[in-house]
C-alpha cells in the first residue's frame, strides 16, 4: 500500500482486437483505503474494463497497477489475490442456479482453509446480514431480483475482502430494490470500513459515493 492508497494505478493502458479498440488510454488513479468511489461514464467508455483491471480479472498492456499492496502486473497467478482481497458484485448477480443461496455464498470459501461446518455457519451469518437467512435453502431461481443481488453481496463478503467491486449492482433491479441494495452497500462500507468501488451510469446512484470518477474514451476526466 502507498500512503494509505489501496489502489494505485499509473498510466494504465488496455486495448482489444489487436490494438484497434483502445479501452483504457493511460489511466492514473489513486483510491484510499476505506473510500467509497463511483466510476461513471457512458457505455464503452472503459469503466468496466478499469474495474476488471482493479479486480485482476484482466491484465494490462502497459502501466502499473497496485492493489492492496500487490503489483498485479508482476503476479501471474492472481486467484489467491482475488479470493482473499476482492469481493465482486455483478450486474446480473451471476449466482450458480443449481446451488442454494447458502451454497452460492460458500463458493469463495473453498480452498481458504474453512471446514464444511465453518463455511455453512459463516454463509448463514452473511445471509442473515443481508436479511435472507430464512431463504438460505432456496435456489436463485426461486428468489426475486433484489434477493438474488443480496445473495451476491453475501457471496462477495465471504472472505472478508479489503475491496468490494460492484459493476452496475442495481442495473437490473427496480428502483425500490435498487435503493435497498445501495443502502446495504453503504452500510457495509460505513460499518466495516470496506473500500467500495462501484461502476454505474446512473448519476443518482453515483452521488451516494464519497468521490465520483468520470471515465470517457478510456481516460479519466478531470
Amino acid at each position, binding site marked *: 500500500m502507498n500512503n494509505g492508497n489501496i489502489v494505485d494505478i499509473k498510466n494504465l493502458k488496455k486495448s482489444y482486437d489487436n490494438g484497434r479498440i483502445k479501452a483504457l488510454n493511460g489511466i492514473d488513479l489513486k483510491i484510499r483505503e476505506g473510500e467509497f468511489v463511483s466510476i461513471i461514464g457512458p457505455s464503452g467508455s472503459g469503466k468496466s474494463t478499469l474495474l476488471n483491471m482493479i*479486480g485482476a*480479472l484482466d491484465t494490462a498492456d502497459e502501466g502499473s497497477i497496485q492493489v492492496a499492496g500487490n503489483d498485479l502486473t508482476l503476479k501471474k*497467478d492472481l*486467484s*489467491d*489475490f*482475488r*479470493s*482473499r482481497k*476482492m469481493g*465482486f458484485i*455483478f450486474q446480473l448477480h*451471476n449466482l*450458480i442456479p443449481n446451488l442454494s443461496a447458502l451454497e452460492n455464498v460458500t*463458493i*469463495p470459501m*473453498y*480452498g*481458504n482453509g474453512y471446514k464444511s461446518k465453518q463455511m455453512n455457519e459463516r454463509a448463514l451469518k452473511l445471509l442473515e446480514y443481508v436479511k435472507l437467512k430464512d431463504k438460505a435453502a432456496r435456489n436463485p431461481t426461486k428468489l426475486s431480483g433484489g434477493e438474488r443481488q443480496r445473495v451476491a453481496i453475501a*457471496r462477495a463478503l*465471504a*472472505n472478508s475482502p479489503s475491496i468490494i467491486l460492484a459493476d452496475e449492482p442495481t442495473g437490473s433491479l427496480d428502483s425500490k430494490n435498487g435503493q435497498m441494495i445501495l443502502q446495504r452497500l453503504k452500510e457495509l462500507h460505513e460499518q466495516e470500513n470496506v473500500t467500495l468501488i462501484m461502476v454505474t451510469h446512473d448519476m443518482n446512484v453515483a452521488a451516494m459515493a464519497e468521490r465520483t470518477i468520470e471515465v470517457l474514451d478510456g481516460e479519466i476526466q478531470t
Partner: protein
Amino acid sequence: MIQGNPFSDDKNEVILGKLASEKMKKKVGDTITVNGGKYTITGIYETGNKELDSIGGLSLGKLQSLDENEGKVDMIYVKINNNADLKTVSQGVVKTYPGELTTISSLEDFQRADDSLQMVETASMAISLLAIVIGGIGIINTMIMSVFERTREIGVLKAVGWKSRRILSMILGESVVLTILAGLVGIILGVIGIEAIITFSDTPLQLIFTPALALRALGIAIFVGVIGGPISCHKG
C-alpha cells in the same frame, strides 16, 4: 456323469447334458417326449463342452428306430491308441471301406474349432474397442457441451478466486461420477439384455458374469471418464 446312471440299451431311457437339463428344467427320474415316445431321464452328465452339455444321449438302437434308420449310422467316433498315427489310421479306414466312409480327423476339427473361437474372440474384442471409442466420444461430447453451457459459471468461479486446478478437478470429478453411473447402468442393462436373449431364444448359451468382468467394464468406464474430463476442459 454328475447324477444318476447311464441309459439301458433296451429301455426308453435317456441321459441329458447339464445345460440341456437346466434349460428343460428336468431332473433324473423325469420323462421327456422324443418323437412321440416317452423317455425316462436316467442321468445327467457334464463334459465342460457347451455343445455337448446342451444335448442328450440314448442307445444306438433306440435312436436308429426313432430315425427309422435301423442298422444304419451316420457317424462313428474312433478312438485311436496313443502311439497310433492319426493320418495312417484315417487313410486305412478310407481304404478299407472305399466309397462307403470318409474320415475327418479330430485334429482338423479342433483346429477349425480353435480358429472359429479365435475369430469370435477377435470380433468380440473389436466390438468392445468400438464400444469404448464410441462411449469415449460420447462422454467427451457430453462434457464439452457441459463446459460450454457453464462458461459463465466457470468465469464466476475464477472471479471469486478458484484456481484453474480446482475447477479442473471439479469437472474431472463430475466426469468420473458420470462414467461410474453410466458404467453401472451399462452393466445392469447388459446382464438384463443377455438374460432376455437367452430366455426368449433357444440358444444354449450360458451367461457367465463374474465380478472381475464387472470391475473390468467399470474400470474402462472410469478410464474413459478420466481421459474425457480434461479433454473436454481443454476443448471447451
